[in-house]
Each structure stands twice: as structure tokens, then as C-alpha cells.
């Protein structure tokens, strides 16, 4: 399989009050096309920072990030933004949306902002509606963002992340602020997207979420100290329970 994302010895250092804080320490990472990678680790281990650095939302202090065969480290801010807009999708724990736009308008905003997109506004809107239909939220397209539930809003965020048909979706604790039922729905949607060929990299605290991923990375103090190949999840409850138990055991070994 083709490599979508590669991190070569990346380090991220913050200087706070003249003190150096090394958040990521010489991390090597490869994500292949069609993978669903979970990044786990205790609080403050650098999971979100890793996600932001490899997605181009933040700059690495040293090392190199290669996306789709192209180094992103030397790209200008505007080029990085273009890359994020056209090639990547993002889902955050907080369902950030533009307050003054309806749910549907929020979803199609990246499409109408993309120069690569040659379709008409109407076509973008139809595509947005189709994505909402697929995720079961087509009834709330015209609603204000504060009129929908957290689960619906997070699914709308998934729709937004999908609108420009990205090669990879980065999800930072996508189920962190959802209840179990909503969390399952959102993860099932991400799984479904992954099965359709979209690469997913997500940060999570939840072993049940990570159990649905094909690979799990375990981060401690800015180092990847463990990596577990899980294989693709078939979708049955029994398999999920087995994978979860297996993962929990592995996590215990890592010091979880």
C-alpha cells in the first residue's frame, strides 16, 4: 500500500518561561493509505501535538513530515493551508463550527473556499446534502448549529471533513465530548469512511474507540513506546469485544 503520511525524526519543543519543554522527541511514523491509526497515551504525552504537527496545523521544531510524497516542512503557511483544505479533513473534540452559518453552510464552506473545486455552488450543496444523508443528519441542514445535538454536530463535522474528498482525516478525540451512543455512531461513520478508502488518524483516550482502528500507537513523554497492529475491524460485536480485551491487555503492558 502507498504511504500517505510519513514523519521522520520529528521533534516539537516549546519554550515556556525560558524553560525548554520537549513535547515530541524524535518521532518516526508511517501511515499507509487505507489505514485507521489510533494514537493513545496518557494526558500530556503529546498525542494532539503529534496530530497537529503531522497534519501541518503546527510546525515541527526539527525533522520532516512527508505528505503524499511531498515534504510539508518547507511549505509556506498559505501552501500548508491549501494542503489542509484540499487533501485533509479535520474533526475536533469540540464541535467547532461557524456560529453564524447553518449546519449545511458549515459543511460546504471548505468546498466553496477551495480553488481546486470546479463545481458550482449548487453542486457543492447537493454533495453536502448527500453526505448529510449518508450520515443520517439530512433533516438538520438548515438548522442553526445550536439547534442540533452534540452527536449530530459531530457528524456534521465529519461531513465537513469529507466535503473535499480528503486523502486523510485527522480526528482529535472525536468522541471525547459525546455519550456512548453518539460515540458509537460517530466511530461507525469513521469506520465506514475508512472502509471506503479514506485514511484516518485519530487521537483517543477510549480503548473502545481505538479497538476499531487497524493500528494503535502508544505515546509517552513525546516518544512512541509501543505500536500494535490490529488488522481491519470486521464490524461484529463479538470481534469488537475481543479486540478491546486484547488492546486493554496490551495497554496494561505499556503502563496504561
Amino acid at each position, binding site marked *: 500500500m502507498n504511504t500517505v503520511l510519513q514523519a521522520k525524526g520529528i521533534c516539537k519543543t516549546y519554550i515556556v518561561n525560558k524553560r525548554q519543554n520537549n513535547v515530541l522527541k524524535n518521532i518516526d511514523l508511517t501511515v499507509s493509505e487505507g489505514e485507521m491509526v489510533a494514537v493513545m497515551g496518557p494526558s500530556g504525552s503529546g498525542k*494532539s501535538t503529534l496530530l*497537529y504537527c503531522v497534519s*501541518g*496545523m*503546527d510546525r515541527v521544531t526539527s525533522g520532516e513530515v512527508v505528505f503524499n510524497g511531498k515534504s510539508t516542512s518547507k511549505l509556506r*503557511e*498559505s501552501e500548508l*493551508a*491549501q*494542503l*489542509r*483544505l*484540499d487533501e*485533509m479533513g*479535520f474533526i*475536533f473534540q*469540540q464541535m*467547532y*463550527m*461557524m*456560529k*453564524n*452559518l*447553518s449546519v*449545511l*453552510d458549515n459543511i*460546504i*464552506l*471548505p468546498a*466553496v*473556499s*477551495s480553488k481546486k473545486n470546479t463545481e458550482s*455552488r*449548487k453542486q*457543492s*450543496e447537493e454533495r*453536502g446534502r448527500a453526505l448529510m444523508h449518508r450520515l443520517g443528519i439530512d433533516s438538520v441542514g*438548515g*438548522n*442553526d448549529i*445550536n*439547534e442540533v445535538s452534540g452527536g449530530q454536530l459531530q457528524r456534521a463535522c465529519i461531513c*465537513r*471533513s469529507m466535503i473535499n474528498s480528503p486523502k486523510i482525516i485527522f480526528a*482529535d478525540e472525536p468522541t471525547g465530548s459525546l455519550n456512548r451512543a453518539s460515540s458509537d455512531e460517530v466511530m461507525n461513520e469513521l469506520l465506514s469512511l475508512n472502509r471506503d478508502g479514506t485514511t484516518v488518524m485519530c487521537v483517543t483516550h477510549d480503548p473502545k474507540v481505538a479497538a476499531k482502528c487497524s493500528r494503535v500507537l502508544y505515546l509517552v513523554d513525546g516518544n512512541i513506546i509501543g505500536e500494535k497492529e490490529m488488522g481491519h475491524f470486521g464490524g461484529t460485536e463479538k470481534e469488537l469485544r475481543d479486540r478491546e480485551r486484547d488492546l486493554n491487555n496490551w495497554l496494561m503492558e505499556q503502563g496504561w
Partner: protein
Amino acid sequence: MFWRILKKDLKRKRTMNLILLMFVILCSMFAAASSNNIAAVIGGIEHYFDIADMPDVLVTMDADSDEDKKIEALPGIKEIKTDSSFYIFSSKSFRLHGKKLDNFINPASFIADDEMAINYFDSGNDIIKDVEKGTFYSTTTFTEGLDIKEGDKVEINVDGFSYTLEYKGIFKGAYIQNGTSCLPYLLVDCEDMKCIRDGIKEQGPSYKSMYIKTDDPQAILDYADESDSVFAATRDEQKSIFIFDMMVAYIMMAISIIIMLAAFVVLRFTVGFTIQEEYREIGVMKALGLSNTRIRSLYIVKYLAIAVVGTAIGLVCSLPLSRVMLGAISRNMVIGSENGVVLGIVCSVCVVAIIMLFCYFCTRKVKKLSPLDAVRSGQTGERFRKKSLISIGRSKLPAPLFLALNDVLSAPKQYLLITAVFTLCVLMMNVMATSAVTLKSPKLMRFFCAAESEITILDTELIKDELTVPGGYQITLDKTAKLLDELGIDAKYSTGFSSQASVTHGDKTSTRIFLTAVRGTQRFELQCDEGSAPQKTDEVALTGYALDDLDAKIGDRITADLNGKKHEFIITGRFSTYMGGGYAAYVSDDFDMSGALANGVTGVQIKLNGDPDEKTVSDTIKKLSEKLESDKVFTAEDSVKMMTQASDPINAIKKLDMILTVILTSLIILLMERSFISKEKSEIALMKAVGIQSRSIILQHVLRFVIVSVIACIIASAAVLPISSSLLSGVSSVIGDVRGIDVDYSTVEVFVICPAILLAVTTIGAFITALHTKRITASDTASIE
């Protein structure tokens, strides 16, 4: 703990707190300066008259008249002071640095220091006790346009008599009007005055003035009404000479009030914004069990601290601002609030109180919020506003423009207020630009009873006979005919003049009506607002003010006493004019005015034959100027400007207003945009995270203000003509009796330059401030609260 939270808050939310502080400073600065201005304006003239020791009645008569003896015997008289005026008729009789003066039109009037009947003030507003021998003070009319400084020698040269005086500075007199078309006054030592009087052989008419303090002013007015040669004006009537200064003051006051209101409106929003930012923390505190009073007091103390610091700085800043505002009018008057600082402190306390009131109402919501509501940043999850009016899918607008428009439509109240403030800013500039142009428009010539012309000559040598010899207008016309003949100028000419007369209708008598006429080869077509222009010698048209004063109407008969001769007239029409302050009667072309001594003249109007172009007019002006050795040859536009005297002061205020508008708009943009950025940090970070370019976000932020500015410019452009018309009608009714003035305007200035100033300021201001969004990065999504 309470103080620690407060300290931490002030430090952590530095930007928003600084923004709030800036607005408090702005608001208190304008409130203190404006109130000082308002107080100075409202009580300005009365205060000036009090310290100048202005009498109750000012009476003028011929120098050799014995009417003063009879007046002294009138009842109620408490005190009488008398001075005698002496005139030098031409500005060319004065030389500065060896060059003849040519900067004023009217005769220069001399006052001796031993006859100072009221208190005169020097440039530092100190009372002049006496004048050092060999020196003189002058009013600004004398020095206008001159490169004169203290210590310069001015030579008086009349018919071979020469006398030199040293310039000591300007002086102000409470009954002295200043302006190019007014009398210049010179205050000299009594011995110098005697030398000059004795030295000049041919002197024009001289007058004496009585400054009377009385318990019965009406007795003097009644006496003056019955007398042909005594003119009386009460203290209140004298106030009208400062009409232009007060007009300027009131315009400044209007500007101040608008700026103050704008600052308060924005302040209200900033307080609202900053408290909205606090909802989450309020929720946490409520969840922890802190009482509403405790929570509210935390914020109230914080805002009180900001308000007190801000108003203190604002109060200090208001002092120079107040000086700038009053500077526009204090040149001719002794004006200024003696209680300026006290008033400023009172205003500052009011600003603090208003801020606390805003804060009280904004924090009132704390009571209604449950901990959960507050944690949700004040949003309950229920619909609390309308759906978006526009949809991105159905719009063809580029994304940044769509988002900007959507933002404006989503918060209409907030943007409407900004639009209202911007509209007022443009409207102020536009109205003043329109007024300045209208008040120098040749269309106004007819309101000065000046015939249609391209050129006006106001050279004193040419027109002095009109003012000094009864029927002197004919001498002026003869001189003009000769002048045009010598220069080979093919033109018609005329001169307009007015002579004060005693006019009676039934038992009503008025001594303030000016009989006005235009004579010469160029006819003046009087346009009547009602009725028709007089055609026969016994017909007359009156202004509305004159009709009211006489309690007369069209068709009534009146009697006018002109230089001791009674004339019967029938009123044929009502007309508008600025002549005689609106108290005028226009007689027909055939009425004999040969015995009339003019009190006011329009100068000589020249109407070139054919259809002269601009170059021909300017060449003719040049020829006339060279021949007359005078710069007092003007285009129609310049002459109207001189007659109204209001165009230049309004133009000066317009420039000051433009500067204030630029400063105010820049500050509003800077502070509002910083507030928006602070409030929308999460959205900006999100947009960046999903890959929307920084320049698109900056463009969106700039476009929001551009949209608002464009709307403001459209509203201001639509409103400028009706508002200017009402304003100018009001001003015209004060200067004279002119109704239905045609507003003139410069299309480029009103519809291009003024809107362009606002658009440029908003665009540049918003762009520079929006660059701050660059500091918000995509990774900030991780740290958004």
C-alpha cells in the same frame, strides 16, 4: 481570593481589558471636552458681555448731534459713557513694510484709550487698561491676510500727512464684529489719536456712541424710533454680531455630541462583549456555589477599576481637545468656561456612573443563568435568533464576501449601530462641504441685491463715496464707467446699496429697515417669493421680517422717512435678502435715491457683454486689479464668500471634522475589530485548521466594515441634500430673511471624496487590525476555551 481572581483576570484578558480602557478614555475625553464646549457656547456671549461690561443700550448718532443731552434726561438712566469714532476710509492709507495695505474693505475706525467705554481684551484675554504712546492694537479684520507681528511699524499716510504706530497685537471688543466685510478697529493712545485727527484735513462723517446702563431701555428705544438721527441697539441685539462665531461654536458642539454618542454606543458594546466572554467562568463560579452578588461584584469592581483609570486619563486628554474645539471661536471672543476642570470632573464621574450602569445591566443576566447555561457560553440550545438570511449554496458571492455579509446580517443590531455612527461621520463632513459650497455660490448674489455679474469690485477708493456722500452711488457709477472705458472693457455695471430709514405702517414704526436699491447699466431683476417686484416709484417690496416688524401685508401702504423726506409706498411683494439682517425694503429702479447716504454697499458688479469664458473673466480681473492697484476685484464666487462670511469658517471646521472623523473611525475600527477577533478566536482557528487561507479571513474581516461603510455612505449621500437644505435655511434665517435657498454642492466632494475618506479609513484600519488574526494559528483549536 477575590483580589487574586481580579488581578489574574486583568492580566490574562489583557487585550479585551485594554480595548475597554481605550474606549473609556475616548468616551470620557469627548464627554469632558464636549460638555466644556457646550457650557462655553451656551453661556458664552453673556459671559463675554458681562466681563466686557457691555451696557444695556448702545446709541449711535452724528458727532455734532445734541440728541445726547435729551437722552441723558430720559428716565432710568444709571450711567452713560461716550466715545467718538474717527475713520480713515481706505486700507491704502496704511503701509506695512513700505507696502500699501489692501486687505480690508471698510473704513478703519479709531478708538482712543481715554474713551474706552467698555472693557477691551488683548490676545491673552487680559483687559487693556491703556495703550502705550506710539503703539496700537487692532481687531483681526485689520490684520487678516497680513504678515504682521508685534513690534512692526504701520505708517498712516493720508493726503500728505504721515504718522507711524507700532503694532502691539490684536484686541477684542464685545460690540465689534470681525470679518473681511466688517469695520476694522484700531485702539490707540489718546495723544496719538489727537495728532492723527489734527493731521488729517479731509475727514468723512464722524459719529459718537453712547454706552448706556439703564433700568428702562425701552424709553431709549422709543426715543430712537421717534428720532431720525439716533440709532439704538439693546444688549441682546448686539449679541447677533457674534452669530457666525456662535454658529461655528454650535457646529463644534454638534460634532462633539455626535462623537460622544458614538463613543458611548461603542462602549456599551464593548462592555457587553467582555461580559459575554466571561459566561463560562461565571458558570464555573455558580457551579461552585458563589452567590450572584459575589459574582457580579467581581465584575463590577473590575469595570469600576477600568472606568476610574480610563476616565482619569480621558480627563487629562480632554484639556487639549477642549482648547482645540474652543480655539475655533475664541479668536474673536473672550470665551471659555471658567469651570472647565470642575465640569470635566463632573463629566468623568458621569462616565464612570454610565459605565457602571452598563455593567449592572450586562451582568444582570448572571442572575438568570443556571450554571449549565453559563458553561454553554450563554447559549441555551434553544433558538434565540433568526436563521441565516442567506445561504452559501444559493449565493454566487465569493466565500469571504459571503461570510462578511452573513456576519453583518447575523448581528444586525451591532452592525446597525456601527452603520449609524459611520453615517453620522460622513453626513457631518458632507453637510459641511455642501454648506461651504452653497455659502459661496453665485446663486446667492440675488439675496444680497447684487445684479447678475462675473466680477465684483470692493476697492474702497472706488466705493467710498457711496458711504460718505449722500447719493454717492452716482459718483461710484461714473468712476466705474470711466474705468471700464479706459481699459476698453465691454461690460454693464451696477452697484447695490441700502440706507437705514424710519418706516411707519399705521401706528407701528421701525428704524431698522434698510431701503435697498440697485443702480447702474446692469438691471437687477428682483425675484419676489410672494407678490411682484416694485415697478413704480411709489411701490416697494418688503422682506418677511420687515412685514412682521411693521405688522403689514402686501397691498398695505407704508411711509418711509429717508434723510428727512417722507415717501409713501404701496407694498407689492415679499422678497428674501441677507441685506440689513433681513429687515429690508426694495424700491423700484426709478425711485430717487440721490439723497440717500448708504449704510451698506454691495460694491460694484461688472457683467461682461457676450459670453465670457473663465480666462476672459480672470484676465479682466487682472486688468482691473492693476489699474485700481487693488486686490479687491473678485469673481462672483469669491464676493459671495466674502459677503456671507460663513464659507471659510465652515470649511475650516469641515477640515477639523474630517480629522476628528478619521481619528474616531480609526479608533472604532481598531477597537471593534480587536473585540471581534478576540470573540471569534475559535472560529478563526477553525477556519485556519480546515485550510482557509489567512488572507481570506483578513478579507472577510475587512469586508464586514467595508459593507457597513458602503451602507453608511449610501444613506449619508441620500440624506445630505435635504439635511443641508434645512440647515442652510435655518442659518439663512438667522443671517437674514432668506427662504428656499438652493443647495449647491460639489459632486466630487460630497459623493466621492467624503465617502472615499470613510472607506479608506475603514479599509486600511480594518486591514491593519485584521492582520492580528495571523497570530491565531490552526493549532490554537487545541487551546480554545
